[in-house]
């Protein structure tokens, strides 16, 4: 039986063709695996991967159903293993049950089971890695770091004793997990070590196997060494690239993203990043188009796209990704009726998708955005009547706003600019709001309109913020 290796991250896309979403392939593969193989590892990894794949497409209800099924499978395996007096199996099943609880956000149960598993297998790097992954999911970073360090210590001892491909791969995997839980400088050092190790001659046999089987799929729970190698290399390069980008090393970051595309031409994260780092509008739109084909429903991609949205470009929506971009353009232009029609069509095709539903709700209230667009135009052309000007000075508005970036400082969050229904806005100066808010999350903003301005070369509204609340 193939061993199961957990790559501590949510799964992202795979191979795309003209009208297929990248993760469609992995979803089909996993469904096939669940139907054909009845063993624990196949069933468990199948449901966990499906959960992760649906989660990246923002189909949360389907993802939860898959995680719940994985939990049932792991709990049944725990009981069977105990009945069969197989304590290693028991400990592994307990760790996976904990991971499923973590994916379902049930912290206390996850922690209880992780501790139970470790009682039996504190000598197992795999158990510690599962511990670290579950703690990362629950936002318990120091616990994740400690567990990941234990995994690395144990795996390094194993490599010293027996430097097999399998042991080296395990060590790289645990170093990658550790990199997800430590400060950036340490993470970069670890990720460089991981990527160098994976590209070394020690992994030639695995690479030959991958070439022979034409494997390309990326999973968070990988069955077998070849699948784990591909997924780990993909994740490590993406994470390293993101760190370089954060530090302003744009060219090095682009190189890393390109390396990701060498093995996965349709990696949505890499494509989106390359769009973000593009020098020309054409190049940016090309990368965005490819990223939307790979994962049309990624909220982070949509945020990114809205930030760089160029209304001069016409989008022809024949594929799902194309339709999504078209809907975003229509919303940004205030073409609410057209946007609703495009989104209704997408809902027909993807009825469980929460991203589309969310955009549809936004489009419903897009009368506001038409109004805001018109207001900008009137302000720009100075065509407001004295009555309209007085009303604008007097009235307060309430909208759902998404901010570009946030600075947290002593219990306050500082915001400067963002988007309301596709309409960019900024404040006269960075403004501190009491409480902790996240950039990119929809928030309820009460404001006055001060005038028209520019934001990153595009027309925008100048707003006076009056109140910011979490959207209920």
């Amino acid at each position, binding site marked *: 039986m193939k061993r199961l290796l957990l790559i501590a991250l949510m799964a992202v896309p795979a191979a795309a063709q003209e009208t297929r979403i990248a993760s469609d392939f992995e979803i089909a593969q996993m469904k096939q695996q669940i139907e054909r193989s009845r063993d624990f590892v196949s069933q468990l990894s199948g449901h966990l991967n499906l959960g992760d794949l649906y989660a990246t497409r923002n189909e949360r209800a389907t993802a939860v159903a898959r995680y719940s099924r994985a939990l049932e499978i792991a709990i049944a395996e725990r009981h069977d293993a105990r009945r069969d007096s197989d304590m290693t199996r028991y400990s592994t099943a307990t760790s996976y049950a904990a991971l499923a609880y973590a994916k379902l956000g049930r912290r206390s149960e996850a*922690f209880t089971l992780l501790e139970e598993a470790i009682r039996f297998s504190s000598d197992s790097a795999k158990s510690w890695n599962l511990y670290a992954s579950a703690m990362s999911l629950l936002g318990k970073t120091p616990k994740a770091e400690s567990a990941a360090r234990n995994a690395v210590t144990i795996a390094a001892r194993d490599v010293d004793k027996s430097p097999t491909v399998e042991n080296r791969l395990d060590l790289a995997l645990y170093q990658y997990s550790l990199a997800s839980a430590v400060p950036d400088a340490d993470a970069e050092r670890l990720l460089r070590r991981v990527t160098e190790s994976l590209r070394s001659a020690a992994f030639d046999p695995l690479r030959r196997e991958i070439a022979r089987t034409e494997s390309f799929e990326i999973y968070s729970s990988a069955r077998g060494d070849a699948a784990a190698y591909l997924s780990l290399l993909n994740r490590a390069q993406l994470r390293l690239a993101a760190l370089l980008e954060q530090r302003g090393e744009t060219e090095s970051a682009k190189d890393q993203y390109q390396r990701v595309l060498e093995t996965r031409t349709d990696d949505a994260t890499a494509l989106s990043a390359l769009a973000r780092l593009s020098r020309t509008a054409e190049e940016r739109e090309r990368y965005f188009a490819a990223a939307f084909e790979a994962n049309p429903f990624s909220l982070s991609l949509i945020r990114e796209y809205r930030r760089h949205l160029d209304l001069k470009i016409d989008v022809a929506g024949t594929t799902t990704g194309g339709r999504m971009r078209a809907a975003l353009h229509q919303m940004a232009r205030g073409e609410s009726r057209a946007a609703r029609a495009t989104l209704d069509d997408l809902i027909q095709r993807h009825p469980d998708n929460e991203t589309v539903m969310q955009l549809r709700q936004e489009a419903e209230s897009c009368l506001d955005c038409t109004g805001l667009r018109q207001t900008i135009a009137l302000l720009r052309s100075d065509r407001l009547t004295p009555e309209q000007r007085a009303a604008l000075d007097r009235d307060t508005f309430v909208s759902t706003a998404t901010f570009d970036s946030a600075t947290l400082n002593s219990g306050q969050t500082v915001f400067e600019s963002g988007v309301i229904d596709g309409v960019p806005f900024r404040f006269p100066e960075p403004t501190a709001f009491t409480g902790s808010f996240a950039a990119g999350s929809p928030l309820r903003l009460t404001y006055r309109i001060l005038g028209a301005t520019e934001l990153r070369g595009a027309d925008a509204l100048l707003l006076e913020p009056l109140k910011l609340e979490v959207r209920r």
Partner: protein
Amino acid sequence: MKGLVVAVIFAATSLHAQVVATTSRGVAVADDQKLQLFDNSRMMWSSTGVSAPSRIVVGRDRIALLDSLNNRVRIADLATGRGEELETGETPIDGIFVGRDLFILERDAKTLERFGPDGSRNRLALASDPVFIRESGGMLYVYSRLEGVVQEIAPSPLAITRRFQLAPFASDFEVAGSTGYLVFPREAKLRLIDLTSMKAAGDIDAGAVPVDVSITRDGNALSATGVTIADPSAKRIWTIEGRQSLTAAVTRGFIRGLLGLGLFAPRSSDFPTGVDRVFTDGFAYDTTTGTLYRSRRGNVRVVAKGVAPYGFAVTNRGIMVWKDGTLHLLE
């Protein structure tokens, strides 16, 4: 509190965090953000708890409720329930009171922290993965799992006095007199450490996968310390005599005190499912099914099913089980 019940079958086992412990003033229960003390059927007091209770550390006049997940401790006065909640280092996993001082082992911070009754706090750095803390002769002993080290610590001033390199990955550590007992599941061994000399005091093969050890009888003039080991793989518990000094053994009329030479007679009990935790008075627990058993003279009976992993405590009146907001006295 319910009356004596021979066997109670509860609903499915809950993994919801709840902890029960015996104190000098009654039974303490932590559940649902509350910490309560019961004396027989009467609730003595109820105070604020923690969100994910993991362990209750019992002292003479105070108790400490640990929340390992959220790095919190609530220290409460046993008489009144009044107390305070404090933040701890990462993952408070075990603790002990020595006099009025509370010592908490913060596993993922690799520290031991002393909480004085006057609010003072001191920290001491430890070896990697410290998981068990025990006391003997006024000194503290901490076992660190990843490094396989036992560190001896003076409580005041807080300092490491000696260390002994044993073996990594023990799953339990108990102390009786001046002997420490550690079980190693993968190697299927019970290892002993002489805490006076801080030297190994032998080891024995202990079943297939021993995971828990309990001092089930204190040594006295007539009998040696009773040590019980839970082996869920063999679905057995093993009861053996602990280490004896030559003088004690001679006094008892036996020359069988030198553990490691096989000069003691193990007794065992078979369980329908594998138990992984053992207690005094023959009580044993299977975490997977939440089943509590009692073993007496080789006979094993189910006491209750569907019991949460830390939702019970052995008292001198029987075993107290917390279930659905009620404390049950069983056996």
